[in-house]
């Protein structure tokens, strides 16, 4: 039986796909057989972030509708051999993801993999509901910014009422907060919500803090999951998050600003 992890947020553009790519790569790198599914029907992007956009032949909806087998649609990652990608359809309607169809595919994957990572679309519509419905755990990606925090709280409410675990009265979906685009300098100036502020408002355990970093854009430009940029702060922060997801205790890093001297502040504008 695979563990099913949804990466969700409510708000768009906070880093769900970046996080899905890195978490699935991190799990696979540790030897776990992992598949990452793109639920964003019509706005497929995980393939680009994972650098397999030219290898997509069949997709998730093809498998649901019986037009292709799972083996035909799964794309094996070229860097980590225990990692597979199931791309979203670019042309179908979102409603093509039926509850039964998704369940069938997830059950089949569940026999073959240790982890199934579901990359949710933004919003709280059908696609997002399907992505979170079968989840055992949820990584809620949040930016330290008012609209993102509010939307995260909304998605937490949906996890607690509309997931399969909630409907069946089973143990609740295990929730994790992943705070991304964090800028410790601005936090220290009082211009940005701190980790503690967001933790206090959302009241769920902290999985990790990803610092705002130019490495993230550079990595996505090249189709490299940022976790593979092992020398970068963002890459290491994702690696810590994956370790914690697997139950390892790791101290949080990259949460304080790298102190600049008085003179460099003066001449570079602080």
């Amino acid at each position: 039986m695979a563990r099913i992890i949804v990466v969700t947020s409510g708000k768009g553009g906070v880093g769900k796909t970046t996080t899905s790519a890195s978490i699935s790569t991190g799990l696979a790198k540790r030897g776990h057989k992992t598949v990452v599914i793109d639920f964003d029907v019509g706005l497929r992007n995980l393939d680009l972030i994972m650098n397999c956009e030219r290898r997509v032949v069949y997709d998730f909806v093809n498998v649901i509708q019986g037009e292709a087998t799972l083996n035909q649609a799964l794309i094996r990652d070229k860097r980590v051999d225990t990692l597979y990608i199931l791309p979203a359809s670019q042309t179908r309607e979102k409603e093509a993801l039926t509850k039964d169809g998704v369940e069938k595919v997830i059950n089949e994957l569940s026999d073959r993999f240790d982890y199934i990572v579901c990359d949710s679309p933004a919003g709280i519509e059908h696609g997002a509901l399907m992505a979170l419905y079968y989840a055992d755990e949820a990584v809620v990606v949040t930016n330290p910014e008012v609209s993102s925090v509010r939307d995260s709280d909304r998605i937490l409410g949906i996890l607690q009422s509309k997931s399969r675990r909630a409907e069946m009265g089973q143990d609740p979906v295990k929730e994790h907060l992943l705070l991304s685009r964090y800028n410790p300098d601005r936090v220290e100036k009082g211009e940005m919500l701190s980790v503690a502020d967001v933790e206090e408002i959302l009241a769920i355990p902290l999985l990790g803090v990803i610092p705002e970093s130019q490495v993230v854009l550079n990595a996505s430009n090249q189709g490299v999951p940022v976790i593979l940029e092992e020398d970068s702060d963002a890459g290491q922060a994702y690696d810590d998050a994956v370790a914690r997801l697997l139950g390892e205790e790791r101290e949080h890093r990259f949460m304080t600003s790298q102190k600049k001297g008085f003179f460099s502040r003066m001449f570079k504008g602080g």
Partner: protein
Amino acid sequence: MSFLDYFKSKKNNRSASVAKERLQIIVAHERGQRDQPDYLPELQKELLAVIRKYVQISDDQVQVEVDRNDSCSVLELNVTLPEH
């Protein structure tokens, strides 16, 4: 420019605390509504109509809430009557 900013930033732009305060209020409010059953707004409207047959009251003088406990739910109705 950056010379002045260095001193200015110490005092101004403490916007994070405003953000936190606003979030705490809106999130608490939305969590309160989240747990309410779907029929509640309609129920509130009809109750208001019934009460108005007898007493003139405004919309905000009727509050309907559902409190859920482990074993049962309690429908709480609060009507503020105008002074005579």
